[in-house]
């Protein structure tokens, strides 16, 4: 994928000003590339118009897979493959299979969901993120606006909109 190179950055100090700014800038018809924050800002994803994450659904499906695998494994091993009488109980001692089924449900759900999260957010040890402003992991919120994506809007209007909505600094950033 060809990535765009030239951005305008708005630097914000406060999360509430940031949220209002996102609303105003989107209302002005400017497309926001992404907002980078040092911590999760609640409600920001709604202002940016992101769809709710479907990770919980993934977790549920992985959990279901874990339960199924665990029960199938235990019934197969204990009832069909090598039945043994243990403690005078039925070969298929269903209540005894619950603890392991529970643990494997949690295990598969957790690892499955985290794997999906890592892949979908492109998190990997050799990952090289594009850092727009080093302060975005420290104390500033950084709003990045892609110039190519907003070709219809004049640059000065974007910069003015950022300033008016409360950005403490407006910078531009180009990547190689």
């Amino acid at each position: 994928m060809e990535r765009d190179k030239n951005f305008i950055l708005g630097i914000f100090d406060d999360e509430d000003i940031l949220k209002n700014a996102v609303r105003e800038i989107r209302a002005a018809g400017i497309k926001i590339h992404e907002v980078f924050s040092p911590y999760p800002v609640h409600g920001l994803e709604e202002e940016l118009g992101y769809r709710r994450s479907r990770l919980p659904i993934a977790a549920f499906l992985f959990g279901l897979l874990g339960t199924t695998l665990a029960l199938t494994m235990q019934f197969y091993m204990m009832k069909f493959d090598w039945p043994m009488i243990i403690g005078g109980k039925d070969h298929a001692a269903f209540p005894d299979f619950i603890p392991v089924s529970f643990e494997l449900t949690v295990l598969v759900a957790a690892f499955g969901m985290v794997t999906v999260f890592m892949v979908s957010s492109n998190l990997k040890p050799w990952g090289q993120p594009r850092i727009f402003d080093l302060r975005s992991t420290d104390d500033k919120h950084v709003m990045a606006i892609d110039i190519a994506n907003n070709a219809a809007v004049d640059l000065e209007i974007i910069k003015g909109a950022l300033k008016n909505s409360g950005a403490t600094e407006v910078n531009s950033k180009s990547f190689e």
Partner: protein
Amino acid sequence: MQVTSPVRDPLITGGKTYKDVTNDIARHVEGKPTKGWLLGLAVSLTVLLLGSLALVATLWEGIGMWGLNKTVGWAWDITNFVWWVGIGHAGTLISAVLLLFRQKWRTSINRAAEAMTIFAVICAAVFPLIHMGRPWIGAIWALPLPNTFGSLWVNFNSPLLWDVFAISTYFSVSLVFWYIGLIPDFATIRDRATGIRNTIYGALSFGWDGGAKTWMRYESVSLILAGLATPLVLSVHTIVSFDFATSVIPGWHTTIFPPYFVAGAIFSGFAMVLTLMIVTRKVFKLEDYITMGHIELMNIVIIITGSIVGIAYITEFFIAWYSGVAAEQYAFVNRMFGPYWWAYWSMMTCNVISPQLFWFKKIRTSIVATFILSLIVNIGMWFERFVIIVTSLHRDYLPSSWVMFYPTITDVGVYMFTFGFFFTAFLLFAKFFPVINMAEIKSVLKSSSEKIIK
């Protein structure tokens, strides 16, 4: 917008800004190790090395090196195992249960508590592993793999096998939960660093960029992991208690064990968190982040769980009497007045009486008293496991086989090994990882700090 009652005390004192939070916490990762830290590491490594002698002796000679005999077949090994697993309960409880209950004060302590959990579970796992004699074979036998002679499987009716699944799931899920929380903080350190540190923390941060979409997914993952980890925490000590409760030994065969063990685990886990955090906040000067308010809240959790444990002890006695089973009644009378009376009364004093002192606000808000009581609680919890295990076994059905249990130097050494490991690991964590979750502190700063920014 978050609305917080103005009546509540601030969670973070000292009027910190976002920048201050980063500086205060990242400073310890970036600076040179202090003398105190080096000294602590030297002591823990010495304990670890001395303890490894006992570990090697156990692996070389076998578990005959321990003080076990034909009547008392389980003693220090499983006592230490249950004790460490119990300590390992606070971390995930703080990060998962308190997250679900929206307790914001957890943000200051969750990172260190989770690290403690992970190290404590590793210490616990040492005991079941080495008691197998040849762990490199035994560890394979514990997994559902066919054996060399055909497909004879592990026994899924056995609580010992449930334990294998419970402990390994708990360990790995806690590790993932902890690491996901560390990623944004590693990115913060990466962006402050240059050279080799930038490369290392860059790899550790998995290329985190802090975009709103990633944060949204991160929040979603944290919430679901918390939801999964909450029943998991409760299940782990429940299953550990099944190791005893499903047997037919008088003193072990009781249905009260699961809730009683879980309460005891939270009790000892919080005590260990307090022990470590009181030292950490002092050494790293984090008094503004881990305030008296945090310590008091943890002490309140200790009163509650300590009282649950106390009621459980009394209930056990009542039920033993009420059951009318002579063997059961004898087991309990023997605990109280038999040859191990001192262990029983140490347990009662440390676990039931001493935490009640926290009803006094003066004691609850005193650093020294909290530190001493947190140590006492963990001594008491060790005795609780010793009492349950050894005194229930040492006088079995034939009076001719009644014996006492005496630990050997190897028993002591293996226990020392786990202490050495625990403190070495915690010290390394405290130096190289951010001890407080910076991102989460920043997210509660605006609503809970003393000085509201703007």
